[in-house]
């Protein structure tokens, strides 16, 4: 059987060694070799991005593409009516991408056909099909849109469309006079890739042709928090005891 040891085993072993010696050698992978993002993570943070007064991550204005004429009105339409300016205070959804950037834990669960992004804030769960299906048609605009995913090498690309006009991020905590909203023409692209065995590189591209003259992107990172694994994701039922919606408190 020496011929087997000399000729066949190297043919098997050399590609395995080549793969394991690469930069991605230690990242978790699915049985089919695709990266496996399953785990518990911090929300996306942008180490070099603008830090607002709030704890949620915000988009950095320096990344914005130039506004189209009239685009400014979408970004700063704060009215003083809290049902418009901070609908989450009435337990309305944060929506995407704002909800994804909220400062809560994120649980990712992946199999061959789906990536589940379970965000602790508002119990939000996004189901990302990975089986090659196209976007659904004929849907009403949604807070979180209609996502579909596909692989480009080791990068998972999530394409989301069919949004309703809603909050873009938490910038109003930094400047209460501004409330950034995206339009119903929003189209987002997320690109997820293991940067190292403990960090997901997460890039979000905002393409909103009613507001911006071009698509623009911001780079984030999601840090794995295996120390949160035992604690897991907590329930977040906003309606349970929302005592002061819009600043009008229930008596106690």
């Amino acid at each position, binding site marked *: 059987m020496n011929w087997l040891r000399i000729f066949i085993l190297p043919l098997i072993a050399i590609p395995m060694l080549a793969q394991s010696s690469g930069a991605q050698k230690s990242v978790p992978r699915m049985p089919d070799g695709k990266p496996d993002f399953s785990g518990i993570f911090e929300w996306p943070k942008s180490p070099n991005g603008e830090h607002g007064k709030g704890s949620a991550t915000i988009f950095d204005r320096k990344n914005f593409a130039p506004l189209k004429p009239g685009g400014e009105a979408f970004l700063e339409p704060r009215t003083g009516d809290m049902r418009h300016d901070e609908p989450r205070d009435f337990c309305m959804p944060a929506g995407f991408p704002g909800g994804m950037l909220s400062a809560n834990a994120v649980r990712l669960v992946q199999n061959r056909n789906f990536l589940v992004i379970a965000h602790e804030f508002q119990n939000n769960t996004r189901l990302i099909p990975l089986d090659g299906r196209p976007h659904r048609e004929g849907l009403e605009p949604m807070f979180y849109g209609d996502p579909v995913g596909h692989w480009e090498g080791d990068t998972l690309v999530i394409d989301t469309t069919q949004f309703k006009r809603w909050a873009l991020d938490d910038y109003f905590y930094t400047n209460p006079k501004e409330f950034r909203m995206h339009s119903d023409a929003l189209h987002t692209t997320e690109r997820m890739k293991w940067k190292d065995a403990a960090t997901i590189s997460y890039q979000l591209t905002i393409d909103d042709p009613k507001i911006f003259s071009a698509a623009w992107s911001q780079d984030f990172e999601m840090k794995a928090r295996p120390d949160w694994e035992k*604690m897991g994701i907590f329930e977040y039922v906003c309606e*349970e005891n929302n005592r*002061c*919606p819009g600043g009008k408190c229930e008596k106690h």
Partner: protein
Amino acid sequence: MKVSNRSLFCLLINGIGLLGLAIPAVAHHSFVAEFDESKPVKVTGTVTKVEWQNPHVWFYVDVKDETTGKVANWGFSGGAPGQLMRRGVTRDVIKPGMVIKVEGYRARDGSNNSSGGKVTFQDGRMVFTASAEDRIPGEKDKK
């Protein structure tokens, strides 16, 4: 019961040392909508009830007005239970019967409700019960 800002500061009962704890920021989605950053509240009193529920923990404190002698029950809003637990603030950190000092900002409707950003216990221990969004009097943009 309406209490002026001046009276609020008269409600301070105990001088308590602070033990600073490094606390990661967490989201509190309603500060801007619910509380008035121009109306700081700093009171000391006895905890009467704790609601360890979403979207925000609420705890209630009987506060004696040193000027009038009247006792008013105040409600304080903290962070979400999950966020607090993840930073080590569990449901039995604040319990009925405890005397605590609470700092925050008053509800926009002028009622006896407030954000409860920082709690100091009689032994000097201090915990942040809310978040960066919950401004804390005397501290700027804690993150």
